[in-house]
């Protein structure tokens, strides 16, 4: 039987311990093989890392078996979870030295004139006007945490790292950012400026 023909959820839940162990082993091998392809060429990933990621992913997949709805192949669903496990850990290691104070201080500067580099504005009056409106919206509408979170995103900090620094949960962090984006959009809309206006000015 090929791996595509295996009824994975049933095999992983099998009461026959031999059948279940074989399915667990096969899935771990498949996840590790996929991770090897996805992370090929990264200098920060060794074979030992791949083994650790595969093992942690396997545990996560088994925990979430009830969430599999059969809308894709089981292995595609499981591989997506494995990639999430691996990339989350790699991002955490890369950004572990960033501090909350640093992020909050930079977030505060987001509303200040020093935050925009000269090449953003140039001599273009329309750009200057639109960026001023954007900066005003950031200053008036956002809380310090929202500014810090947006700054973190712009700096390409991992979302997990941002919420950890802000001391909040993932869902609360997502709401914080979503509310911030909605507030900025509304404020600019009230000023008669659409996102397209700004986009056009910077294209």
């Amino acid at each position, binding site marked *: 039987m090929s791996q595509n023909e295996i009824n994975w959820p049933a095999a992983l839940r099998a009461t026959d311990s031999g059948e279940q162990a074989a399915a667990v082993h096969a899935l771990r091998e498949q996840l590790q093989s996929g991770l090897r392809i996805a992370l090929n060429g990264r200098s920060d990933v060794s074979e030992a890392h791949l083994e650790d990621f595969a093992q942690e992913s396997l545990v996560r997949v088994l925990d979430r078996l009830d969430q599999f709805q059969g809308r894709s192949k089981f292995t595609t669903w499981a591989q997506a979870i494995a990639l999430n496990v691996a990339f989350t850990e790699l991002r955490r290691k890369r950004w572990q030295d960033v501090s909350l104070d640093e992020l909050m201080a*930079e977030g505060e500067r987001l509303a200040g004139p020093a935050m925009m580099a000269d090449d953003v504005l140039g001599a273009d009056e329309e750009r200057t006007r639109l960026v001023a409106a954007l900066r005003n919206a950031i200053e008036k509408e956002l809380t310090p945490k929202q500014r810090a979170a947006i700054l973190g995103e712009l700096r390409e900090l991992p979302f997990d790292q941002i919420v950890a620094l802000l001391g909040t949960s993932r869902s609360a962090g997502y709401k914080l950012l979503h509310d911030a984006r909605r507030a900025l959009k509304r404020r600019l809309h009230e000023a008669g400026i659409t996102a397209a206006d700004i986009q056009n000015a910077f294209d």
Partner: protein
Amino acid sequence: MKKKEQRLTSEQVGSIVKMLGLTTDREFNCAECLQHVSEFAECQLANKPVGEVIVSVEQHLALCPECREEYEALMKILKSE
């Protein structure tokens, strides 16, 4: 983060604008995206039309660089099979 990186570039201002342009009242978060991204990836690979739910995946991937990175890695694996 180094001091010299503290000013926003045109690209970063563009990122804020892009985020605002894609912002809607109801959006998938990362967990919801992860739950449905496998279906989205298989549809993309097979050139099949995407349903309403996975349109939300596409919108989230446009906004979230981390989920997009994981999606692209998933596509790399699927294309190698």
